Every structure is written in C-alpha cells, then in structure tokens.
C-alpha cells in the first residue's frame, strides 16, 4: 500500500481523518 504521506492531498485527508477521530474521542471519553 502506498504511504498517504507521500502525497500532499493524502496528507491533508489523513489530517482531517485524525481530527475526526480525536474529536470523537475527546467528546465521548474526555468531556
């Protein structure tokens, strides 16, 4: 599998996914 960080827009998409995952984690478990 290709590393998504090799692509600029792959990096941006990964960042958005990490944001969603962390948001849900903070909202559901830490707030």
């Amino acid at each position, binding site marked *: 599998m290709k*590393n998504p*960080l*090799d692509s*600029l827009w792959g*990096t*941006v998409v*990964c*960042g*958005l996914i*990490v*944001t969603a995952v*962390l*948001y849900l984690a*903070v*909202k559901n478990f*830490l*707030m």
Partner: protein
Amino acid sequence: MDLVPAIARWVHFLAGVMWVGLLYYFNFVQIPALKAAAADGTAAGITKHVAPRALLYFRWSSIVTWLAGAAILGGNFVGAFTLQKGLAGIGVGAWLGTIMLINVWALIWPNQQKILGLKPATDEEKNKARRVALLTSRANMMLSIPMLFFMAGGWSHRALFGL
C-alpha cells in the same frame, strides 16, 4: 498577573503563524518547487539561499510557540497535559503541538542539515535523510490539522462538544 497570559497568547499566535506558515510553505510550495527546479538545474538557488533561512525561522519559531503556549496554560499546564475534564480539548492540542516540536528538533532539522550540506553525509545518508525529513514534515502537516482544531477551540467549539 493578567498581563502575562495576554502577552503570551499574542506571542503564541505570532510565532505559531510563522511556524505553521513555514510548515505549509515547505509542503505546499518548496517541496514541489524543488522537484521542478531539480529538473532544470536551478535547485541550488532554493537549497542554498531559501531553505536555510526558512529552516532558521521555522525551528526557532517552534520553540517560541511552545514556550508561549506553556505560559498561557500557566497553572493548568499539568491538567491540560493529563487531559483533565474541561482541559482535554486544549490538552490534545498541546500534545499534538509538543509532538510536532519534537519532530522539528529531533528529526527534521538534523536530517535537513545533512541534505543541505551543513553536516557531512554520504550520498546514501543524504537520500535516507531526504526520506525521513519529507515524511516527518508531512506528518507534522497532518498533525497540524487536528492541532489547530483543538488549539482554536474556544467558545465557538462549545456546540461541537455538546456543551
């Protein structure tokens, strides 16, 4: 004293804009430009005159940003980093910023020194350094997206967290 967090917040924004601005410059502008410049033999102009200056402001603004951020947290520093209730949002932002700072000083800068010839390295070491520096820079760009989401989490984020 209320003046310290107020000035720290201002400095945090100034230095943070420079740090993340240069991070985006590297990823959106310089890396693709170097690829094109290497093809027509003009990459030296970037690697000799532009990259070292950009890296200088990039790495020192990361330190100033982190220190000013720590000053803003003040007595909430430990609570934020241990993700206590009410501080978890900013705590996640602080952790992401800290990981990015470590990446700058432990991975990006030492490898960039080899790439730019500021530190002796064989061609093989330079090639490895290019790969590590690129992936770390990309990782920081990826982390900057959630980092800014949580850092900017003020009143506007209350609805998002159901508060």
